[in-house]
């Protein structure tokens, strides 16, 4: 039992720091400091630097383009990128469909999709949720009927509606859960399809969320024709991929490194915010909330490290990862609550276009500008990826045997 980094790890950390210092696109930092939102090309700017370096997918097996880092090196990597406030990479290709493809895909699928995920050439989105199925994912109703095309090849004809499809407006490809056997019950009869988003019959409609963001979409599929070779794993066995992916999604979701960075930001804000002549950070109750967050964040961090240690000693990411999702998102939400509280009076102004003309200009401290929209937006974290209530159900059943 030992928390110390080896000499090799220390050297690696120096290498990482130097790389970030030299190669991170500096203009992204400026955008973040001014509270601006990231656009697709901003995410890709960093993505492409990492792809060129070969560091874009540390978690992947080396044969598919992973870095071969140890768990400690990956921990150092996420610490350092968060410390430098690097933009987060979009997870849909790298953390979600990529692992599904290299785990369950055919050699052809691996050859076709994985390199384009690594390079950033393809932007992916996730077609899971439907209007009728929120946390109850398995109740999905999007249908895929198999037929033989005039060319003699096998196809699916897909009809249905997906929702909460993040970044679908930019996506080249989507991975979809569809029902291939309507007679089967619930989790059976579902298949996992890769669909080119330019296929005729796909309509993407924006959903505007409370902070005014266009992050998520409705995706309508009307007689969308998909070749059978775009199916990953067996027909009617897509739930296997879905479960694998959900567990995978939950590990990353703890977001420890990013939350650490957010705590530092809020401390800085509280140092610079006046409260009756003193810095807000001198207010014992505001300070106490920060201290409690730091304690809970450390508890999350060391619980994640213990989980990772368990994984590296052979146990896969188990249902315990639901703990990381619950506590990670609670902390993320508390951070946004603190930011809004720190903003005080200046939490009220709204600096985004209401959809008809942009009236944004700087009022109050920069840190306050996005406090309310981010607070509203982050309510999603306890809902998506299996709501925190569902995560508790999972722990109750899988860990506690209830």
């Amino acid at each position: 039992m030992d928390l110390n980094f080896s000499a090799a790890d220390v050297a690696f950390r120096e290498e990482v720091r130097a790389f970030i210092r030299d190669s991170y696109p500096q203009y992204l930092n400026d955008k973040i400091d001014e509270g601006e939102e990231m656009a697709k090309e901003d995410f890709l700017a960093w993505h492409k630097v990492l792809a060129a370096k070969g560091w874009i997918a540390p978690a992947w097996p080396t044969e598919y383009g992973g870095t071969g880092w140890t768990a400690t090196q990956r921990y150092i990597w996420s610490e350092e990128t968060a410390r430098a406030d690097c933009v987060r990479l979009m997870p849909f290709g790298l953390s979600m469909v990529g692992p599904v493809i290299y785990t369950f895909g055919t050699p052809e699928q691996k050859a076709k999709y994985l390199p384009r995920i690594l390079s950033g050439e393809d932007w992916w989105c996730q077609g899971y949720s439907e209007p009728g199925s929120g946390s109850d994912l398995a109740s999905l109703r999007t249908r895929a009927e198999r037929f033989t095309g005039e060319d003699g090849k096998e196809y699916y004809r897909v009809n249905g509606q997906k929702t909460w499809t993040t970044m679908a407006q930019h996506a080249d490809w989507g991975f979809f859960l569809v029902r291939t056997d309507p007679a089967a019950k619930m989790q059976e009869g579902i298949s996992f399809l890769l669909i080119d988003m330019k296929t005729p019959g796909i309509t993407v409609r924006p959903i505007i969320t409370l902070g005014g963001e266009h992050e998520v979409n409705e995706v309508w599929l009307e007689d969308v024709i998909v070749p059978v070779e775009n199916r990953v794993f067996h027909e009617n066995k897509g739930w296997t991929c879905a479960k694998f992916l959900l567990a995978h999604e939950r590990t990353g979701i703890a977001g420890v490194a990013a939350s650490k960075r957010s705590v530092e930001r809020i401390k800085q804000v509280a140092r610079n915010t006046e409260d009756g002549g003193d810095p807000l950070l001198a207010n014992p109750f505001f300070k106490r909330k920060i201290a409690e967050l730091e304690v809970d964040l450390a508890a999350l961090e060391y619980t994640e490290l213990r989980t990772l240690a368990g994984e590296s000693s052979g146990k896969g990411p188990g249902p315990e990862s639901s703990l990381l999702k619950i506590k990670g998102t609670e902390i993320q939400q508390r951070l946004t609550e603190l930011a809004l509280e720190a903003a005080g009076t200046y939490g009220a102004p709204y600096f985004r276009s209401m959809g008809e003309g942009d009236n944004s200009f700087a009022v109050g401290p920069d840190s306050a500008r996005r406090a309310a929209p981010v607070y509203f937006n982050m309510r999603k974290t306890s809902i998506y990826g299996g709501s925190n209530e569902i995560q508790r159900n999972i722990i109750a059943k899988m860990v506690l045997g209830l």
Partner: protein
Amino acid sequence: MDFNFTEEQTMLRDSLSRYLANTYDFDTRQKTVRDGKGWNPAVWTAFAEELGILCAPFSEAHGGLGGGAVENMVVMEELGRAIVLEPYLNTVVIGGGALKAVGGAIADELIPGIIAGQVRIAFAAYEPQGRFHLNDVTTTLKGGQLNGHKAVVEGAAHATHLLVTARTGGGQRDTDGIALLLIPADSAGITRRDYLTVHGTSASEVYFENVAVGDAHVLAADALPLVERIVDEATVALCAEACGVLKVLHAQTLDYAKQRKQFGKAIGDFQVIQHRLVDMFMEVEQAVSMTMMATLKLDTPERAAAVSMAKAKVGKAAKFVGQNAVQIHGGIGITQELAVGHYFKRATLIENQFGSVDFHLSRYENLTLAA
């Protein structure tokens, strides 16, 4: 002790409630939000002329109903139920409250204008560096000239008058040396930067540069105690608005939980959701109780302590009920499509308006809990 409304108060509530149900549905409200002005003048005119609610707290001599804080509570709760954008709080409760308190010629002149919907007042008291502290005033009134910067002045863009605190003496956070002014909003030397607020009203940064202020515009010198009283009255009215907002959040969530099916049953059949809805219900009931308590104590020596207790409790309720309303709705709760998200936004802004939970707990402690 008596917790019942008078017949007149009940009538006031019922007629306002009916009126809003008929004319102020969610889509109509959102149209006003999208218009980007932060209010609908026609609605305000109707409040004055058709409904006559703007007279609720004023004396009969001024053409009012002879009501007071309870009437404001009744009105504000109903306005909260419909998340009304128009400026009853700033104009009637705060502006009207200040005029009632100082009385005299200026009250006789302006209160009828408020009642008629012609006079609208915005409250320019908080400053960028001052957070929730009403005594933290750098705006100065010296030699008849007003200079300074007031932060997030709600309704300034459509106000006829500004109610302004300004320092005539003392240091930046001294409790004496603060005057309360009421000046025409179009006085020379006033500039504004207007914007919308997160929940759809308009607000402004207001800048004063050598604005000429005559004695007639000074409502009161050494006015901090008066300002605190006015803000206490406004805070209670805001609590009443919150009660309306929270009742709707709870009711909509309860309805949704009964209808929305997941895993083959209504989500309201899950015990965890049931208990959450019970906890929300209890928070709402207690918020209502505290709002009544503080309203009824406005004219007693316990006023400030009672108001801070109420705001602290209501602020916590707003967070708990708002967050859980969204959580139980799931994804649809954080879109612009459903009303619930907009009630949540209003509830969230109320948490910090006139001071956060911590601010009011500290104020309560300072008033009552000497070591």
